[in-house]
């Protein structure tokens, strides 16, 4: 059974590589039971979104 700490590492790595089937299943199972980790996941997804937006703002001209 995955600990929350391990789950955060997998969630971070999921942003950088495709997780293996086993990793993915373990993570999904953990997330189904853990609100804290579900929030962690949405938070780091939001971070990525914010970074993309940040770059777009720098790249594009705001009319």
């Amino acid at each position, binding site marked *: 059974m995955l600990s929350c*700490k391990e789950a955060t590492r997998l969630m971070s790595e999921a942003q950088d590589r495709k997780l293996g089937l086993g990793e993915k299943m373990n993570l999904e199972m953990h997330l189904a039971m853990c609100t804290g980790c579900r*929030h962690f996941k949405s*938070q780091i997804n939001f971070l990525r979104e914010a970074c993309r937006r940040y770059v777009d703002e720098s790249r594009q001209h705001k009319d």
Partner: protein
Amino acid sequence: MAQCAASLFDPQQIEEIRRDLLKFASLQLRDHALAEDVVQEALAAALTSARDFAGRSALKTWVFAILKNKIVDQIRLQARTTNISALSTDEESMDQTFDSLFKANAHWHPDHRPAGWGDPEESLRQQRFWEVFDVCLNHLPENTARVFMMREFLEFETPEVCTQLGITTSNCNVILHRARNGLRRCLEKSWFASGERPC
């Protein structure tokens, strides 16, 4: 016939582009003078390339692409003289803080369990949010920030980041995890917790 692109843009427009890009470059390089140099070079390269720009947005996109390459060159140079994976005291203290979020069994400590951020999309539309975001990014230790920005801002795939910076994949993963958690905590403290949003 190719026309000098510079003549198509007024100095004030160029200055606006320069200012935006300077902010971007300073954040990545953490060295204002160096940032000024790369932005200047990128602008010069774009303006003398005699490309046909459809408008200011096109010019900015083009300069930005050149700038990205120049920033990567600089980061690569810096990586040669620094040990990116070496832990500074700042990084060590980030790791300690991270560990303190958990109980002995590695599950969230009730006081530190991540909370919901409501509708964070709404924040992206607020100028003040971006100021906090800047502060949080600047707050990351230098090497951590470098790896994170190559991944998220210059949009390199992780294996490329590792190769460019000469670090192992597992090291890269550790650094990115540290950066994400640090940013997450900083935003939580400085923005989401102090805002009007109930969790």
